[in-house]
């Protein structure tokens, strides 16, 4: 547990040492110091020139909008009315958010939806192992599972709408054929709509996780398995003692990006359910869209975005802290 961090930090600690030594010595001899300082300044200037375009882009397109968002969240402003009507009115929006039952529901839906990420990853890992070790024509399966990812989300949604048709869709046709009397109405049923959407999310994102896991599997040294074979380890033991631990960095990457992407889901909800029926699939981003662009309440929508930002930040931070406990660092 402690060894990986130690080895990770040790080289960093060693690097400053040689640098600090000559610089402390140079203080006694002034002439080379000024020359060095001038060179140092030049280097810094050159550095800024190199990162300048990028920095400018980040400031204009990321930093300024974020600061504006923060300001907007403290106002009752609508983006239609122009900047002269912008009045800071304090934390009223956030106070209202705390009492907004709909927002609470959406947040809950977001948290439930997060389950789709680990479930999807487990499925992807299982498939990755099967495909890379047991299947003929493995590249064929890779393509098959990657298909939903490269298809238009609208097309995918329409296909699933038909599959999930409440009266005579194939899914319910099958369920009634095997004797289920009142099959769920899936996307039109407030209790089943969210699981249906999650199912789709897993299905769409499976391909990416699968490809990344297969790449991760290729990186595991073969000799570990050979050694395990000589020791007489079973397939199960090999999986849990070699494959899974050595894939944890991959899993960590997928988990962190997956959770963030999951939190920001919008397109699928928009084309599939519009947050309905009866608000049962609404998520925060969808609420932001509704408040900001349908009800034209920019201030309130901005406050929602700030809350979303804080929630994502907190979850990512927790994962970053938690990773030391389970991620193998080779």
């Amino acid at each position, binding site marked *: 547990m402690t060894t990986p961090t130690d080895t990770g930090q040790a080289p960093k600690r060693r690097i400053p040492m040689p640098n600090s030594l000559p610089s402390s010595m140079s203080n006694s001899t002034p002439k080379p110091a000024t020359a060095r300082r001038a060179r140092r300044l030049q280097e810094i200037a050159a550095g800024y020139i190199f990162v300048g375009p990028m920095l400018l882009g980040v400031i204009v397109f990321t930093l300024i909008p974020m600061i504006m968002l923060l300001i907007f969240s403290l106002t009752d402003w609508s983006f239609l009315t122009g900047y002269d009507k912008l009045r800071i009115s304090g934390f009223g929006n956030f106070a209202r958010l705390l009492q907004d039952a709909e927002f609470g529901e959406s947040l809950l839906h977001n948290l439930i939806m997060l389950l789709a990420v680990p479930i999807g990853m487990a499925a992807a890992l299982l498939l990755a192992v099967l495909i890379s070790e047991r299947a003929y024509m493995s590249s064929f399966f890779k393509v098959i599972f990657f298909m939903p990812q490269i298809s238009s989300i609208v097309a995918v949604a329409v296909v699933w709408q038909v599959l999930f048709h409440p*009266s005579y869709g194939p899914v319910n046709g099958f369920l009634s054929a095997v004797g289920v009397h009142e099959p769920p109405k899936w996307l039109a049923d407030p209790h089943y709509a969210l699981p249906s959407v999650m199912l789709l999310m897993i299905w769409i994102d499976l391909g990416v996780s699968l490809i990344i896991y297969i790449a991760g599997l290729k990186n595991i040294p073969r000799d570990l398995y050979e050694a395990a074979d000589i020791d007489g380890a079973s397939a199960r033991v090999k999986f849990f003692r070699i494959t899974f631990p050595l894939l944890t960095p991959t899993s960590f990457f997928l988990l962190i990006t997956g959770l963030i992407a999951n939190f920001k889901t919008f397109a699928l909800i928009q084309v599939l359910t519009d947050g309905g029926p009866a608000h049962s699939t609404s998520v925060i981003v969808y609420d932001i869209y509704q408040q900001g662009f349908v009800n034209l309440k920019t201030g309130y929508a901005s406050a929602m975005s700030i809350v979303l930002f804080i929630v994502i930040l907190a979850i990512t931070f927790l994962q970053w802290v938690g990773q030391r406990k389970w991620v193998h660092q080779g």
Partner: protein
Amino acid sequence: MLNKKMLSAAMASALSISLLAGCGSGNGNNNGSDASSAAPTASGAASGSSAASDEPVTIKLASWIPKAQMDGMLAEYKKEKPNVTVAYEELVENNDSVEGLKKLDLLIASGSDLDVVMFPSAAEYSKRVGLDLLAPLDDLLGAEGIKVTDEYTVDPSLNGKVYALPDTYENYFVLLNKEMLDKAGLPVPTNWTWDDFYDYSRKLTSGEGANKVYGTYFHSWPMYMQLGLLNQSKDNNLVNNGVLKVDGPEVRKSLEIRNQTENVDKSAIPYSETISQKLAYRSVYFAKKAAMIVTGNWMITEAGGSDEFPATFVSAFAPMPSNSAGEPSGVSPANGNFMGVLKKSENQQAAYDFIRWYTTKGEQWSNVYSAWKKQDVDQFISGLKTKLKSPDMIDTASLTYVMKNSPTTPLNLPPAYQSELEEAYVKEAEKFVLGQQDMETTISKANAALQKIVDANK
């Protein structure tokens, strides 16, 4: 500190404006109806607020209406006022007013120098008056010496002031597939209640499974959850002057209409199918999946066939059903497009003159059913028939009857937060229609939710 932020905000907005301005002038060059229109557009704003009658003026108009359709109107206006050039910006390519409105909002937000704007409904108009975007027109109307209620069937006053003129006139009726009516041996109804409607719907339902033809179809719009409320001659909104109308017989009737047809009689396409399949009312009606639909007068021309949905059967028209036998049928809220002048427009007079012409003679010229009182219904229908793709597919007798026998209600403009109210109401109504909660729970929950919104917006 704050100044710095404001400065950066101003910088960012200036940047976006210049970007959009770049787009705008590009458009002007591409589609300028006159070769010269691009140049005056640029100088139009500068050329001054004092629009003398023969000084050249350029006003900018943006809407979702296709450019091809608008060009004819604008050419006609050029004949009327040669010194005025109207630069038209088409917001969307598919005639979709909802998408167009979003683009309009962004355009206004980015500081575009638009003069005239158009809204597709009273609710959208009211929402933007709430944001103080539109200029009051009372002085200009007074200068012309007219009263808006004498001139138009719809009164667009909000808080005692007129911020827009009503353009097209929309009211609701029932559109029926006459072939199916004849087959079932039913006459075109002229005076009916919702009970009669259930009866018609049951008799028009036939078939089973995927080939089932339903009696009726209710679209996913919030208005279809309020059918027993919007046929009232007064106070036909969920909230009228701050007073809730949820816990009353009209909303109960509205819910009953949906429950009776969809869940009890199974004569309407189930709501679960409507939302999960995202059904569209045009394809449902023209593909003969449902025999009658409650709809509005924008469908009159479409019943005569469009490129996408050619008319293959005769359509008849019936007034809106009433809630009980004693009440008149055919009552429906008047809605339609509204045209207003932006507050920051520098050509108020010219812009006003244009919308006055557009909403009266202009719409008469293009034979659109408008809110102008002086328009002649018979002339409109005969004019309409010459324009339709298949005029024989419209039952003239019932159309004339409906148009002449639809007592219009005084426009009851919804509050600026109407979309929030509808969202909250539909959320509860959906649960009822889908069989998740009973009537009384629905009413009490919706009542509480709407009261909260009203309180928050006081």
